[in-house]
């Protein structure tokens, strides 16, 4: 197989099905590394990676950092507060300074859509998008895909519904691309005030009632609802949102089949998801977190020039070269 990822991972919209499968297949051997007593392989020894977070993040940043450290890369974390960014440095200056330090890779989260592509076009280092505005969050969707594949043994033909604030969700956009390219049927469900107008044109089904989505789907990916949406007038209250769109045990009880429940985190228990669902037997939410490290290891390894066939060897001690 001659598939490669190219220089950067900006989003799933621009990846082919083969490229998506390459990442998921490469993640498989890396899963085992995290189960060892000594969780380290030398695949990226000598590589320098900057984690550049212009937006607060706990789980994504930690997940990337573990992935990098378990691949033996040297890493530096930069967060917006306290850095030159907070002192008014522009993104282009930040990019040029990173370039001048001859780093190998940048993992970036940024509040503006398109920021990752902007950076990737201007520096020679590999760029991994860790979430840009409301555009894409590719590694989150990849770990969702890996979790679904683990659970069902396939992606093709699965019915997956994204529930909640699709309008402001980069996770939703990346999932729509990734799932559709791998042959899943994709739906979205939420109040119309939180769905992009005309989203059907992306090839997704729209459900207005969460009960319909539950009736239809094999898996639900429940999106986080941010409190600010209420203040900005998109929904009347979190209480009503839970009443109308919350994924509850009672609603799931009426499903014709056992649904798999995913959530990208962090969860608002009692807003978009019932605690009993999040902690219940159909939740794969913690499997998603575990898979996140393996998928990110795979992405970093592939962008550094690693080959799928060598991933097993890399795991045992060889380098990426």
């Amino acid at each position: 197989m001659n598939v490669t990822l190219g220089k950067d991972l900006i989003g799933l919209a621009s990846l082919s099905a083969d490229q998506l499968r390459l990442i998921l297949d490469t993640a498989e051997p890396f899963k085992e590394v995290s189960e060892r007593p000594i969780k380290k392989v030398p695949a990226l020894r000598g590589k320098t990676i900057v984690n550049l977070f212009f937006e607060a993040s706990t789980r994504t940043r930690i997940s990337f950092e573990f992935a990098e450290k378990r691949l033996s890369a040297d890493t530096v974390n930069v967060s917006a507060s306290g850095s030159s960014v907070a002192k008014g440095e522009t993104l282009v200056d930040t990019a040029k300074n990173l370039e001048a330090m001859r780093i190998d890779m940048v993992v970036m989260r940024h509040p503006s859509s398109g920021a990752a592509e902007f950076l990737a076009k201007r520096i020679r280092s590999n760029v991994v998008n860790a979430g840009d505005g409301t555009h894409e969050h590719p590694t989150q969707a990849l770990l969702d895909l890996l979790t679904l594949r683990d659970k069902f043994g396939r992606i093709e033909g699965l019915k997956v519904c994204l529930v909640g604030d699709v309008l402001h969700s980069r996770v939703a956009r990346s999932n729509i691309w990734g799932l559709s390219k791998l042959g899943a049927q994709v739906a979205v469900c939420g109040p119309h005030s939180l769905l992009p107008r005309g989203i059907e044109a992306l090839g997704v089904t729209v459900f207005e009632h969460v009960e319909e989505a539950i009736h239809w789907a094999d898996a639900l990916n429940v999106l986080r609802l941010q409190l600010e949406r209420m203040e900005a007038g998109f929904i009347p209250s979190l209480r009503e949102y839970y009443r109308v769109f919350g994924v509850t045990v009672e609603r799931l009880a009426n499903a014709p089949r056992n649904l798999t429940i995913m959530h990208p985190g962090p969860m608002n228990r009692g807003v978009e998801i019932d605690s009993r669902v999040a902690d219940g037997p159909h939740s794969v939410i913690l499997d998603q977190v575990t898979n996140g490290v393996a998928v990110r290891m795979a992405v970093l390894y592939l962008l550094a020039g690693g080959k799928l066939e060598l991933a097993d060897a890399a795991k045992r001690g060889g380098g990426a070269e």
Partner: protein
Amino acid sequence: MTRPILLQGGRVIDPSRGLDQVADVLIQDGRIAAVGASLGAPDGADVRTVRGAIVAPGLVDVHVHLREPGNEDVETIASGTRAAAAGGFTAVCAMPNTDPVTDNQAAVGFIVRQSMRAACARVYPIGAVSVGQKGAQLAEFGELVGAGAVAVSDDGRPIASSHLMRTALEYARTFGIPVADHCEEPTLAARGVMHEGLVSARLGLKGIPAAAEEIMVARDILVADLTGGHVHLCHMSTRGSVELIRRGKERGIHVTAEVTPHHLSLTDRACEGYDTHAKMNPPLREEADVAALRAALKEGVIDCVASDHAPHAYDAKEAAFDDAPFGIIGLETAFGVTHTELVQGGTLTLPELIDRMSTAPARAFRLPGGTLQPGALADVAVLDVSSPWRVDPAAFHSKSRNSPFAGRTLTGRALLTLVAGNVVHDAGASRPR
């Protein structure tokens, strides 16, 4: 007095008189002296053979931002009027969102003086509708007009208050000037950075729905009907706006409208790849909107083309899409883009395009110009409509480079631009002017 100029053998197109024929044009004492076959050259005349080229009334742009005073790093009245002349424009109307805002007679006088000093294309200042463009208290229209303003506008900011729009339209009647509005319902457009549609959904960028413009177009037309004032609608971008204007005009309401070369030629797909040179307000819309705008310009529902020339520093546009400023420059590409897209594209005849870029805007704003009638001011453009040229922003006379047309091959550019019989642009000379 300057030497007489004889433009020999060009195709003379004067939409003000329905003239389209090969003829000579004689210019003396800053005015058109004669238009006709085989005119003799007076003693000492500067005789220029312009066979194969178009001789037209100088182009008129009712909507430009010259950034002086306040942001002279990106444009000045001198550089902006040189760009205008290079684009075939002999007159431009300067929007008042300068720093400080052009909301008083002294500020208008400054622009008039700076334009006299530049001695290039004419500048007609537009005064602010409200003091500081804050949308509350009316500016002193009488004094603005006395100092040289030809219209009022809060462009860049929509006039949110319908009461302010009403009083502005009523009060402007005394002075016979249009109130030019940037139509945008601010709560619906809030934080939007591009057209709301499929492309914005894909890119994850906040959209500005077409309705944000159309609500204000409808309101302005209704308020113009209520008051009998003249409302001029800036940079129309949607097919819905076109229908509202059509109905308003059919009912005899005094409404005029403009459209930019970019809204006539580009769609929201230009934003793909987060190209900040495709970020402008109003945003680039959809194919169906472009088609409706072209048809409306042909029919006269939209009166004229205006560039909305909006210079920005190169590094301001070198940013994430959300963070980049709105707007592009257009004076040096306006004729090339519209000629290539609309005339070669088969929508307009060349005389129609010249009408929409010269005679019609002059009429809408009651400005001199837009005619080659003997006796009129000799504001003339000689245009090449046959040789393709490649847009190279580095060669622009404007101080800014923010053009979405960089690298495009266009047909249609100014060879020679005359203001009151003086050469202000000569593409054949080694240095312009």
